[in-house]
């Protein structure tokens, strides 16, 4: 395997952009990443395009990238729920690491095709899924609430500890111009926000609607010398896994899949949690951040709530988590969330994160878990 570096990153702000098209969002991030890499569009040799699961447009990646330049390069479209953007990155990484191409683009766009009020939900995959919807118990927010209550019972965690995650992530996002929510919130505001499903409140959930685009240019280490732009960031490992054991029920409070994915990523990179300076992890709801502290090895099982409350994952703490606000505050445009995570790690490892800078950051980890289930863990180092 060849060493792969990230030469450029580009982002459009996350949020709601009813007046912008897919192409405008895609162009902003793609050209941003190319500029950052010191490259032109025609230098790209392959592209992996991840998208919103609700977008029915066929081959949207070919169309979008084709309007930036017709180069004949292969383009693949993909959807992998919350892991869509990180899956595009994984494919781009493999293409370069295994020598098929020298330069690959990973780009993800999330653009809502219709306003949500006019947009029909996707058809249920099975009759059982249809039944769960009619019973009103299909929303993933309910899984988060069930996990919160069980953890409060088993580990003595408190709603305040979960809410603290939201306060931290909003505070981080307030210093990130590309974040969807750039306003700090207080513990009381989080706890007293609209009840969704007890004990989950609105400000413990990521924004319901997010659009955006993020991109990364990956390159073999040798070819990167032609485009030297200062500090290169190396991909130490990129792992994508699906479930290998059934986690029915228990899956609410201990995501075995994320644990095994992280383990493989640590092994390939030849490092452990002690070597990681900062983490971007999957926090669609506050409880998920707490659970994933345990999966990634920040603490033992049952201690996640305690460390959420004690400041060690704040910027300035022992190991900062979600320095750009995470899914909760930066936003969760699922087609490109993974690439926003990559962008934040690259900024941090280059020392370009401004007021969010984690001092001396050398190694960062990005984690996501989506329906399927599917999980990705990517480790970057400078």
């Amino acid at each position, binding site marked *: 395997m060849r060493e792969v570096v990230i030469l450029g990153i580009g982002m459009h702000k996350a949020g709601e952009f009813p007046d912008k098209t897919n192409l405008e969002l895609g162009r902003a991030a793609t050209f941003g990443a190319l500029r950052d890499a010191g490259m032109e569009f025609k230098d790209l040799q392959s592209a992996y395009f991840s998208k919103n699961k609700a977008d029915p447009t066929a081959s949207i990646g070919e169309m979008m990238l084709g309007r930036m330049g017709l180069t004949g390069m292969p383009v693949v479209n993909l959807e992998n729920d919350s892991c869509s953007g990180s899956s595009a990155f994984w494919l781009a990484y493999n293409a370069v690491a295994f020598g098929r191409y020298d330069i690959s683009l990973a780009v993800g766009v999330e653009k809502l095709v219709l306003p949500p009020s006019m947009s029909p*939900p996707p058809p249920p995959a099975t*009759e*059982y899924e*249809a*039944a*769960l*919807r*009619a*019973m*009103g*118990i*299909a*929303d993933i927010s*309910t899984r988060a*609430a*069930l*996990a919160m*209550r*069980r953890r409060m*019972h088993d580990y003595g965690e408190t709603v305040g500890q979960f809410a603290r995650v939201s306060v931290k992530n909003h505070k981080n996002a307030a210093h990130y111009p590309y974040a969807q929510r750039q306003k700090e919130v207080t513990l009381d505001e989080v706890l007293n926000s*609209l*009840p*969704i*499903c*007890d*004990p*989950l409140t609105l400000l413990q959930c990521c924004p319901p609607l997010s659009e955006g685009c993020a991109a990364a240019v990956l390159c073999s280490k040798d070819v990167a010398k032609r485009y030297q732009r200062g500090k290169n960031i190396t991909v130490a490992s990129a792992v994508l896994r699906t479930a290998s*054991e*059934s986690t*029915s*029920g228990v899956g*609410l409070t201990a995501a075995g899949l994320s644990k095994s994915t992280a383990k493989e990523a640590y092994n390939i990179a030849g490092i452990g949690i002690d070597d990681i300076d900062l983490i971007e992890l999957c926090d669609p709801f506050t409880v998920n951040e707490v659970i994933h502290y345990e999966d990634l090895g920040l603490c033992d099982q049952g201690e996640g709530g305690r460390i959420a409350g004690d400041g060690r994952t704040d910027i300035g703490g022992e190991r900062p988590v979600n320095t750009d606000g995470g899914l909760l505050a930066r936003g969760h445009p699922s087609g490109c969330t993974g690439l926003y995570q990559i962008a934040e790690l690259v900024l941090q490892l280059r020392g370009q994160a401004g007021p969010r800078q984690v001092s001396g950051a050398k190694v960062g980890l990005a984690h996501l878990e989506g329906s399927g289930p599917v999980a990705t863990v990517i480790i970057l180092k400078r």
Partner: protein
Amino acid sequence: MVEQGMKPIAEGLFTIPSLPGEQPRLIGSKCRNCGRVYFPKEVVCNACFQEDMEETLLSNRGKLYSFTIIHQKPMAYSGPMPYAMGLVSLPEGPTIMSLLTGCDFEKLELDMDVELVLEKIVEEDETVTYKFRPVQA
């Protein structure tokens, strides 16, 4: 409870009692090779990869693993608000996502014994579904 003419929310999820005193049961499948039990029914055992399943009726009692009170109405749901749902662990292994009924929200507790009942989701509609309710002491 269940009367003539009611239609199940989906085929193959539960039995509808036809005799007085008979209890409704959830319909699962059991792997003949490794014994793992699934709900709803599966064709292939994803633990041992065998395609050798038999239909099995699950216990109509379980324990409440967790619960939540839902305050925002989901799109496809037309029942009363707010409402309780829970995750019920059955002795055979599967955990079941289910509506909860016959309960005072304040009195729900983790690990309490719950039992299966069939009920309508909406009073005006014939459709019945499975729900769990606390076992009366």
